[in-house]
């Protein structure tokens, strides 16, 4: 299991534009880090670079287990990392049940915790609806289902709570707390502060 995520000397640019360089960050099990910065400062790109979806210009992203042994990058990402981006990755033509089931099975383990996910985010009434009938907030809750349904140590979250109302924000905060208690790691890009103790990494950026 991932115990430490360490980023050293990371440089990322998009096209001709340099987003940040020489970035260092270390997150340990049970720890949450909040990523702040202006729009376009590179929050999303940093998360994508950690998830291996974007190739950094320089620097290194490394994963270590509790004994300090390095983990294979591909396996750490393919088995231990959740990435929840702006887009929910849901197919509008399929039902919520099909989509949640696929996401949990694809990312998850032998026993997909579908019921836990349904219970955590109040998805039961949505399950038989096609995704196209769901509101933005409902879709986000459905996408969050995979965080609970297929447990993975590292959560990379990009504005996770943006479409949620106050009630579900509280529910999600609770889930994050549980994840940290279970020695999970969270790195979240947010505009509003997270409702739990977290370090802040400010990417700054032009205003």
């Amino acid at each position, binding site marked *: 299991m991932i115990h430490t995520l360490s980023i050293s000397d990371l440089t990322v640019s998009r096209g001709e534009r340099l987003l940040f360089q020489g970035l260092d960050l270390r997150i340990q099990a049970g720890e949450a880090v909040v990523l702040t910065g202006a729009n376009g400062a590179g929050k999303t790109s940093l998360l994508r670079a950690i998830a291996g*979806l974007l190739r950094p210009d320089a620097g290194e992203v490394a994963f270590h287990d509790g004994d300090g042994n390095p983990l294979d990058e591909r396996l750490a990402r393919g088995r231990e990392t959740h990435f929840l981006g702006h887009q929910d990755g849901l197919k509008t033509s399929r039902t919520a049940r099909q989509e949640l089931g696929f996401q949990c099975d694809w990312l998850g383990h032998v026993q997909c915790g579908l019921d836990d996910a349904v219970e955590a985010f109040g998805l039961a009434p949505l399950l038989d609806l096609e995704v196209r009938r769901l509101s933005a907030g409902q879709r986000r809750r459905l996408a969050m289902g995979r965080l609970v349904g297929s447990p993975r140590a590292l959560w990379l979250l990009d504005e996770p709570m943006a479409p949620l109302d106050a009630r579900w924000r509280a529910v999600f905060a609770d889930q994050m707390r549980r994840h940290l208690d279970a020695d999970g790691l969270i790195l979240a890009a947010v505009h509003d502060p997270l409702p739990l103790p977290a370090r802040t990494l400010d990417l700054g950026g032009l205003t």
Partner: protein
Amino acid sequence: MSRPVDAEPRPPGLRGATRVLLERELDLAWGGGGGPLLACGFFACLTAVLPLAVGGDPRTLSPVAGGIAWLALALASLLSLERLFERDLEDGALDLLALGHLPLESVVLIKALAQWIAVGLPLALTAPVAALALGLPPALIPLTALSALIGGAGFAFTGTLGAALALGAKRGGLLIAVVVLPLFIPPVVFGAGALERAASGQSPGPALAFLTAYVLFAGVIAAFAGAAAVRNAQG
């Protein structure tokens, strides 16, 4: 120096993940607008228009029946390729696929496999009917179906690669055709050649062997090049 993530949270295993993705891809192919029906309909339309264009004389038609069937097959295989990766890129599902237990190369292969089952298989069943209608000797029907089935896999692999390359392009559908059709030449040559040889009393064996070899080769190329193209589009 690096060791695998420890084994306690068991992944679903290769077969499990493959099945999960394959089921989803097939569901999307069949569900989303009836891609296979569309391809078969297109195939049938081409077959019907052709005699009207060149004249219905069996003496003109029947020598080229096999070739026409193969051309129509290649064109029909191009349909529905455009949405293969594009929709997953648009809605973010491609990120999800990249973070699964399987490497992206396998994801590309599974998608190609789904394309083959969803589109290639129905087309392989339609091909003998179309070839018959064009005047192909009935004795060649099993060979037509078999070669269309093998060739369909080649079209699926190559087409999947084209779809991955065209990610992020304007008018992807047209672009895929221009990129992929030159790569369709070997399967069309070997597939139609098998029919032609059989029609002239020779053994279609070598042609089928070449066809199969090309399909295997295309699978390997499509996996690696397709994965590289997908990663490029994601980053």
